[in-house]
């Protein structure tokens, strides 16, 4: 903002010879309003405080507090010496600039000024603020209103050329031309430079005032502001106008002597406020020709790159600083960070960037410095590669590449252990994950698990069953060998079945007697084996007793006896049996034997 501080206009335009100031009379202080006591809302007005007759302010007075109805914009000061009739009068003045923002009638409180060791107070003033745009106001008059023409004071923007290349610096000078007495000025509208990178050229002290001729007229002229602009893209760009508010001391035309003295300033002059702005300037920005080298710095001008390591022998895991200086002319400030393709063993941290840019009327020049901290993680001989920047050389009108040579560095010590020691940041992606597996995997049902696998349970349990079987088999074998009764009992069935099959063969023939004898023998033998008794000499009663003792049911015993009886009947009876009858009897005997086998264990 242009109102940040006091804009000291040391325009000595009104200064005549400074004679030794006489001390006749007391210093006085007074306040007055410019342009007048009536302003419109939104217009600026000035409260001026003057100390005259040799008084000099020891301290700038503080601006009157008008915060209820006007906004304080800034202040300026001026000093003038007037010689009338051989007497010189020095007048110091402070101008406080305000913008009215409410309508109504308001008072400006008195301002106290320290001068010549005394405290001087000004009289309070009244201001009438009118609604916006009402009544012809003398608020911020254009030059014509103020009693002088537009030719008398104006601002121009001067550029060396209106065709520039993208990235090419261009000096813009804003110059004031005046034929009137300007006591002070303020930059009120500093242009926003859209599409440009702006570098202000610092002004050394006060603007240099010179006499210049323009359009056949003699002007007093000074450069108010000088900037270097760098277009950031191609196309048609506009330099927005610069706006200034100037206080012009004009000679009153007419008016009565009284007013001349008290209303319009001293000695027939009065301060007028005037706003002037420069014309917008159109700049054609041409794109750079194709074929630019990468990485491109964006600089149009001249470029030199230097790089250095603070040490070329370093221990593993110790930091080493790589400094890259980019210097030259052109838009050095916008030079991007260099891309350094470091050996994998180095970890790099984001750089510290600093720049020293000087903007002058010849353009921009300076140095931008990048300081990288590198940490080697493994020992060995490495090379920091060359650092390159492409730029557009103005003189040869073509692209060039500035290069800092490669630097060799040797790293001593042992390798860093583990990735944890080098936690540089998430961006370090030089390592990559391993590749996917392309082979077709064996897909298993989710939540299958062993517990649901039949094969698992079979493998788990079957051997146990097998072992149990083996154990049983072993015990059987042992009993067959050692226990006669067990062996006879287990074999009884087999012997009996053998005899039955012989009997069955006999039943085919006609010899009924032999058949029944065989069946009886089989049955008896079976029972004897089962009960572990001697078969020879067994009586019917013995069978009955034995079977009952073994716990055989009465019904079965009766069937056994019945069966044996029938055998005896056929063996010793007169009648020969039919083959069919014999087969039925064989079945009956077999059934009895099976039942007995079950009953006697």
């Amino acid at each position, binding site marked *: 903002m242009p109102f940040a501080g006091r804009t000291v206009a040391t325009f000595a335009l009104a200064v005549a010879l400074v004679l030794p100031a006489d001390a006749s009379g007391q210093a006085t202080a007074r306040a007055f309003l410019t342009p007048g006591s009536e302003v419109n809302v939104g217009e600026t007005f000035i409260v001026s405080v003057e100390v005259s007759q040799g008084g000099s302010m020891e301290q700038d007075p503080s601006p009157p507090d008008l915060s209820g109805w006007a906004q304080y914009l800034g202040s300026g000061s001026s000093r003038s010496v007037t010689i009338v009739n051989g007497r010189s009068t020095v007048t110091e003045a402070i101008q406080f600039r305000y913008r009215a923002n409410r309508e109504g009638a308001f008072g400006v409180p008195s301002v106290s000024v320290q001068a010549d060791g005394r405290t001087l107070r000004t009289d309070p003033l009244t201001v009438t603020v009118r609604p916006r745009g009402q009544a012809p106001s003398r608020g911020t008059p254009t030059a014509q209103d103020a009693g002088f023409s537009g030719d008398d004071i104006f601002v121009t923007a001067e550029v060396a050329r209106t065709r520039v290349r993208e990235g090419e610096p261009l000096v813009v000078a804003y110059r004031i031309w005046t034929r009137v007495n300007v006591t002070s000025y303020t930059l009120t509208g500093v242009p926003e430079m859209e599409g440009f990178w702006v570098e202000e050229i610092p002004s050394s002290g006060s603007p240099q005032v010179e006499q210049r001729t323009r359009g056949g007229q003699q002007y007093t002229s000074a450069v108010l502001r000088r900037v270097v602009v760098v277009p950031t893209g191609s196309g048609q760009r506009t330099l927005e106008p610069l706006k200034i508010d100037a206080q012009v001391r004009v000679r009153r035309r007419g008016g009565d002597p009284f007013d001349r003295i008290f209303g319009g300033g001293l000695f027939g002059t009065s301060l007028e406020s005037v706003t002037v702005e420069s014309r917008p300037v159109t700049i054609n920005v041409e794109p750079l020709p194709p074929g630019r080298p990468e990485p491109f710095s964006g600089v149009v001008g001249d470029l030199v790159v230097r790089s250095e390591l603070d040490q070329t022998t370093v221990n593993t895991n110790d930091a080493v600083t790589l400094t890259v200086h980019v210097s030259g002319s052109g838009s050095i400030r916008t030079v991007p960070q260099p891309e350094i393709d470091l050996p994998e063993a180095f970890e790099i941290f984001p750089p510290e960037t600093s720049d020293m840019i000087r903007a002058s009327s010849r353009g921009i020049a300076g140095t931008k410095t990048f300081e990288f901290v590198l940490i080697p993680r493994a020992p060995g001989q490495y090379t920091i590669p060359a650092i390159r920047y492409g730029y557009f050389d103005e003189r040869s009108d073509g692209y060039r590449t500035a290069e800092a040579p490669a630097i060799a560095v040797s790293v001593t010590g042992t390798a860093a252990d583990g*990735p*944890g020691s080098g*936690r540089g940041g*998430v961006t370090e992606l030089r*390592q*990559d*994950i*391993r*590749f*996917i*597996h*392309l*082979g*077709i*995997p*064996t*897909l*298993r*049902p*989710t939540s*299958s*698990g*062993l*517990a649901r*696998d039949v*094969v*698992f349970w*079979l*493998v*788990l349990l079957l*051997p*146990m069953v*097998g*072992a149990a079987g*083996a*154990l049983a*088999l*072993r015990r059987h074998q042992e009993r067959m060998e050692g226990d006669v009764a067990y062996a006879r009992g287990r074999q009884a069935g087999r012997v009996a079945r053998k005899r039955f099959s012989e009997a069955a063969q006999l039943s085919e023939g006609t010899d009924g007697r032999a058949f029944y004898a065989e069946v009886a023998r089989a049955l008896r033998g079976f029972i004897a084996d089962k009960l572990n008794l001697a078969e020879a000499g067994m009586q019917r009663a013995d069978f009955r007793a034995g079977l009952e003792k073994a716990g055989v049911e009465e019904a079965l015993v009766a069937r056994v006896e019945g069966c044996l009886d029938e055998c005896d009947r056929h063996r010793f009876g007169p009648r020969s049996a039919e083959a069919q009858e014999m087969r039925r009897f064989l079945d009956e005997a077999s059934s009895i034997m099976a039942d007995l086998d079950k009953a006697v264990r």
Partner: protein
Amino acid sequence: MALAFIGVPSPGESQVDAFREGNDYYQEGRFIEAVHAYRSVLGAGVESAEVHYNLGNAFFKADSLGRAILSWERALALDPGHPDARSNIELARSLTQDVVEPIRTFWLVDAYRWWIQWLPRPLLLTLAALGWLALWVGVVLGILARKRGVRRVASLLAVSGGVVAVLLSVNIAVREFGLGAVERGVVLSKVVPVRSAPTADDNLILFEIHEGTRVRIDERTDQWAEVVLDDGKVGWVEVGTFEVI
């Protein structure tokens, strides 16, 4: 018989096709599509360490660090010896925001963990089955054999088979039946505040954990879970900020 252990019901052709499709997408650099393809394999109710592993890679390439770590952890849960998943997890952990230094464990515990995870599943199952069968063949032979030489061989077979079976059955019990297993989760939200009590009171925030950090889940309510970090820090987080491995 032991081979029947490994020979698993063959997966549907469509899942194999989806897996191949995922691989193709991955190789073309279309990682989001690859994620969908691999997920469709898992969604069909079948799984394999390789599918989880590839899915993790696709997530990683699609800048989803938390889910990548989760998938690799699942691959490791199925196949603890998967070297690629292990390597990728290590790399991914170095990219997470939280640096959790695990508490140093007693060497015996480390040795036990190594033992449990030592053998790949098919080999483990085959060896355990062979040991088990050898044990019982030895037992049966010992029962039935009459010659002393045969009986000596049988008892040798039974003892060695028994030792193998008992040792490996510990692995099977831990790995397949989850004996003594703890529930672990991976943080999926970008930032998760960890509180000292299961209430949404911001005054109780102890610290914050970030995407990709692995936690142990000790206790759970409907909305809150007590988590333990690898470095021993304990606190409560909201359920839904993490996913169980």
